[in-house]
């Protein structure tokens, strides 16, 4: 390789005296896929935001193709060919693909928009990306993966040669991830440089050429990916040996606590029957859209069902609302922590006690008791917050998830459904979550875990139900809980 495309030299960043990035020095080559690894709070986002002009560094310099540049704003970054593919897409749902791609840089012919030209350009771009997405499709009609494609196309139309992807795979199905990786390979061939951030070390190992590892704002090392394995990466990120991510599996008792029979929801779920034993961790695996979340929501009374019988502790129940579910000591942590789980503008205690508020009320809410109970959860679940008065939006993803967990623990559930319990949280918080779940079932609570991370399902569950297109396709247990078998049923390869 000749001269590096992007050089980061002695970059540091302080926020009101706190150093969050410390003297980072890296070279990134043209056409390279460069991974950036670190736990939450290690400084990954800060570094990215410096590169794409959202933050200005406190010290240090950036060089683009050997020329010193200062990236003051995201606009300037774009002009220099640096684009960020955001985690939460900035697309306008009511506009079409081509309108979004050319948003803000519309091509005009006289006073009017030159729509045919823009359509053609978009369609060329889509061909280049080898997708059959129509330029005239409405964004609201697209899948998450397709939306991501549009975001990438949007960056390419601006001649970006550096793409920053911040955890692009978290929202994708396994199949879609493959498409994304293919696309990344093609972009790489064209000489596009990609900065890739992911919590999934397996992906990093697979797609990246080199990686930078950050810990507490320090540059721990730059490695050729071929020289390290996932264990090395994790060890370097955390700074110590990560022994035992998953606790020892514990085996359920004989007693059946939940039984579902022939549950149907038109167009969503067909003939769902299963049972859950006391103290069991039952996994639900499947691709996105297999109907697992819908199943959980219907169990909680959040979705009306057409038919089906649910029995809890031997008693037939009719759950029409979350309140009914609560009465039967059923709990559900949604996959959508921010949209359905927590009130981000509320403080920690108010979030934790929201469902169980009655416990704290005798005429009026006894706020001292709320605080007391919150302090216990903070201690028990190792929640890091500067004070009880912190609003939730100022907590990291992992700590938010622990607050969410506490919120349901405070209702004292017998059955807890956890939907993607570790989405978007770092290695340490994940490990914590696994151990909390484990001690929960040890105490006789029964858990259903819905997860797209096979590793998690395999590591935690004693029995796994695989779903596909609204049906249960298989149930595996024991040694059959392995990646091949689960994928086989999830993808419907039989």
């Amino acid at each position: 390789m000749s001269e590096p495309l992007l050089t980061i030299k002695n970059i540091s960043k302080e926020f009101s005296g706190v150093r969050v990035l410390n003297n980072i020095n890296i070279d990134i080559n043209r056409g390279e896929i460069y991974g950036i690894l670190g736990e939450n709070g290690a400084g990954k986002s800060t570094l990215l935001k410096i590169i794409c002009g959202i933050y200005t560094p406190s010290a240090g310099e950036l060089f683009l193709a050997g020329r010193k540049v200062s990236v003051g704003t995201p606009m300037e970054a774009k002009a220099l060919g640096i684009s960020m593919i955001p985690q939460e897409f900035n697309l306008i749902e009511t506009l079409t693909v081509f309108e979004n791609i050319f948003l803000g840089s519309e091509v005009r012919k006289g006073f009017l928009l030159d729509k045919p030209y823009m359509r053609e350009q978009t369609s060329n771009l889509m061909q280049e990306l080898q997708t059959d997405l129509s330029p005239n499709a409405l964004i609201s009609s697209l899948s998450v993966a397709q939306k991501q494609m549009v975001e990438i196309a949007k960056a390419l139309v601006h001649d970006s040669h550096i793409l920053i992807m911040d955890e692009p795979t978290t929202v994708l199905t396994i199949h879609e991830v493959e498409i994304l990786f293919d696309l990344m390979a093609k972009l790489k061939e064209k000489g596009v440089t990609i900065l890739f951030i992911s919590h999934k070390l397996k992906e990093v190992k697979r797609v990246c050429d080199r990686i930078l590892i950050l810990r507490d704002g320090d540059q721990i090392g730059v490695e050729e990916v071929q020289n390290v394995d996932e264990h090395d990466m994790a060890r370097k990120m955390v700074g110590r040996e990560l022994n035992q991510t998953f606790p020892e599996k514990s085996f359920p008792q004989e007693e059946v606590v939940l039984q579902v029979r022939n549950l149907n929801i038109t167009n969503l779920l067909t003939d769902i029957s299963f049972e859950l034993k006391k103290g069991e961790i039952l996994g639900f695996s499947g691709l996105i859209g297999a109907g697992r979340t819908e199943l959980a929501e219907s169990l909680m009374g959040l979705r009306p069902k057409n038919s089906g019988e649910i029995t809890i502790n031997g008693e037939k129940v009719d759950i029409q609302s979350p309140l009914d579910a609560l009465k039967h000591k059923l709990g559900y942590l949604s996959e959508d922590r921010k949209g359905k789980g927590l009130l981000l503008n509320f403080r920690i205690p108010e979030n934790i006690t929201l469902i169980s508020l009655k416990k704290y009320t005798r005429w009026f809410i006894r706020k001292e008791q709320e605080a007391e109970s919150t302090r216990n959860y903070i201690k028990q679940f190792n929640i890091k917050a500067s004070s009880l008065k912190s609003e939730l939006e100022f907590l990291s993803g992992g700590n938010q998830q622990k607050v969410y967990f506490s919120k349901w623990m405070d209702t004292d559930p017998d059955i807890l459904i956890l939907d993607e319990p570790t989405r978007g949280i770092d290695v340490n918080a994940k490990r914590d979550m696994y151990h909390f779940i484990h001690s929960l079932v040890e105490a006789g609570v029964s858990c259903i875990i819905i997860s797209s991370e096979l590793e998690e399902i395999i590591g935690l569950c004693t029995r796994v139900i695989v779903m596909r297109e609204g049906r249960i396709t298989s149930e595996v247990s024991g040694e059959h809980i392995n990646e091949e078998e689960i994928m086989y049923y999830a993808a419907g390869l039989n």
Partner: protein
Amino acid sequence: MNFQAVNWNQIKKIDFSKYTPFIALLLLVILSAIGSEHFLKFRNITNILRQVSYTGTIALGMTFAIVAGGFDLSVGSMTAFVGVIAIYTLNYLGAGADAVILAVLAAIVLGSALGAVNGLIVTKGRITSFIATLGTMSIFRSLTLYVSEAGEVISQNDLYPEIGGGYFLNIPFPVLIFLGLAVAFHVLLNNTPFGRHVCAVGANQQVAVFSAIKVKWITFLTFVITGFTVGVTAVLLSSRLNSVSPGDAGIFFELDAIAAVVIGGTPLSGGRGTIWGTVIGAVILGIINNMLNMLGVSPYLQGTVKGLVILIAVLLQYKKS
């Protein structure tokens, strides 16, 4: 290591964003006291508070509707309608204190019931509160004019004016009722599960649903509370004048009530808010009216000033978030 920086940030945050309405009120009082020697006289202060208490009481109820993410435009027309019906009830029942008590009860029940109608349209009919109450605003006004045949409705009871015109310890009754309700509502919003649920519904309806909160019921109740405060105001206002003129009574009350809530720091997007802020917002509006009168500013210009104050209050909120 960075204690000073952190503390300073916290101080700045608390002082600025939370107490802005209070600081604004303080400044306004000081300016007014300098501007007019009559301003700080006891009589003037109680007058201002009395003026404020009518729309202020409605603003207390409106705070619940707005915190829950809603809105009620019908309160002005509703005030006129309830006022007219209250006086008709009174005249039907004849003289005496028990007639007054029954009429007052009827007014409060009617107000709450009309609020319930708004609440039902919003929750069961799934119509956004803006449109729903725009509709009922027109309906209530038209019904008022119809039942009264657009003529002034006058009470024949001698005791009735005592409510709106009476004093206790030299303080007008309406002021006492306004402040008393404010204290009760403050406790309701801050110290009860209901108040917490109102905030949760306004902050994120989905999260509220997933947290086993009866979202529709809570939303419905905020409209009932607003209707209840309209019932109270209708009594205070009609008893003060001992009559209701169906065409003008309650005109622009919705504006003043919403303005008081917003000036008091409650965001129109809902999710949080304070009752004391609303009280201060209402008083700020009252003082501005009072000062403009005392300074001899044309009454036609007063709307302009009020409008500017509302805009500034909202702008300040934007800056905060």
